């Protein structure tokens, strides 16, 4: 191994060294070494790393694309939810309005019904009163007969000579009767 460190020993004995003249052994060995490097590194290892780098780029790009798609989907879903919410709110408000309207209608109807009932009751009462009045009137008439007889009795009891006197007696009697009837009516009403 001495010649790993000492260059000059052999050189001095042989002819002049020519740096521009290529050494045959070096040409051959250099070619072989370069060929081996090219075959192993160039054909096997570099294409492998090239492929891996491309795959990595693909993976990163794919990941980014997937994330983008997911984001788009999320946005779309959110939009859908918002639309649904708006719809629901609209529906709720319309329902409320409808209910209010319906309530108002029901109240109006009830009022009308009550009014009608009141009217009916009033009419019935009026009819009752009228009937009673008629009845009273009828009974009065029949009573008037009896009273007339009574009056006649009285008149007969007194002197019947003066017709004017007679009519006065009748008038007085009738007034008396009317006054009685009025007071009776006042009490009943």
């Amino acid at each position, binding site marked *: *191994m*001495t*010649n*790993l*460190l*000492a*260059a*000059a*020993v*052999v*050189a*001095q004995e*042989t002819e*002049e*060294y020519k*740096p*521009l*003249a*290529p*050494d045959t*052994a*070096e*040409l051959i*060995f*250099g*070619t072989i*070494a*370069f060929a*081996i*490097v*090219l075959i*192993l*590194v*160039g*054909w096997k*290892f*570099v*294409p*492998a*790393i*090239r*492929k*891996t*780098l491309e*795959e*990595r780029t693909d*993976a990163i790009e794919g990941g980014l694309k997937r994330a983008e798609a997911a984001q788009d989907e999320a946005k779309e879903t959110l939009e859908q939810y918002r639309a649904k919410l708006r719809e629901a709110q609209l529906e709720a408000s319309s329902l409320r309005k409808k209910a209010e309207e319906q309530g108002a209608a029901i109240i109006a109807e009830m009022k009308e019904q009550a009014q009608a009932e009141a009217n009916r009751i009033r009419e019935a009462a009026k009819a009752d009163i009228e009937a009673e009045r008629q009845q009273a009137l009828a009974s009065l008439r029949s009573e008037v007969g009896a009273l007339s007889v009574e009056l006649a009795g009285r008149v007969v009891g007194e002197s019947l000579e003066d017709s004017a006197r007679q009519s006065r007696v009748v008038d007085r009697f009738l007034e008396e009767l009317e006054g009685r009837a009025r007071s009776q009516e006042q009490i009943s009403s």
Partner: protein
Amino acid sequence: MSAPHLLASGSGDEFEAPGLHIFDWGPLFPDGPAWLDWFTKPLLIVALAAIVVIAFSWKAFGNPKLVPRGVQNIGEIGYLFVRDQVARPMIGKDGDRWMPFLFSTFFFVLLMNLAGVVPVLQLPATSHIALPIVLALVVYVMMLFLSIKHQGLVGYFKNMMFPPGLPKALYIILAPIELLSNIILRPFTHAIRLFANMFAGHLLIAFFATVSWWFLAEKLTALGAGVGLVGFVMTIIMTAFEIFVQSLQAFIFVLLAASYIGGALHPEH
């Protein structure tokens, strides 16, 4: 083994700067079998560089994971560096297809260069011109093949020598210059740029190391100690500078290779 053998071959009292002989290496096993005589130190460095590149690539990329761990991270940094600084700017979109060649070449050259500052090895294998020649020739043959394949034989020379859009008179000068620079000079400049940088760098480090060894250890005198100290400091500075140059030259070598390939594929640029 003695230091003078390593650094300076001078046997006298005079300081002798290291010369071309520091590149001249005999058989690694001088007492070994004769059939192994061709195996010298620069070839050991070539073999080690190849083994390290292969082992590292195997460790980093042998079983690549989508989520990288450990060595794969470092390997990916190297891969992305070559891809984004060399392949894509020089070749364009289809630059990735040439990554196997560019990546292997870059790290093979880089390791052979860096051997110049690795203790014990301390010799850039590329400072022996045979290796840059092999590398540049491969690139040159590839460039010719791709050019003719993509542009056709006539188209290749037409695109090279008569690029459109120039005044006609200019072609008289341009055509021979382009032919000369593209076909004849290109492989030489490509190989020699790498070789010369490594050669000169190694010579510089060896010179300063020899100076500091000679004046500080071999012949220590009051007067010479200053010189030796300067040499020592300069050795360290030059070593750092060489690491930079070695990396830069490996980068430039693949950058040019990629540019030649790119030119062959897309002559319009």
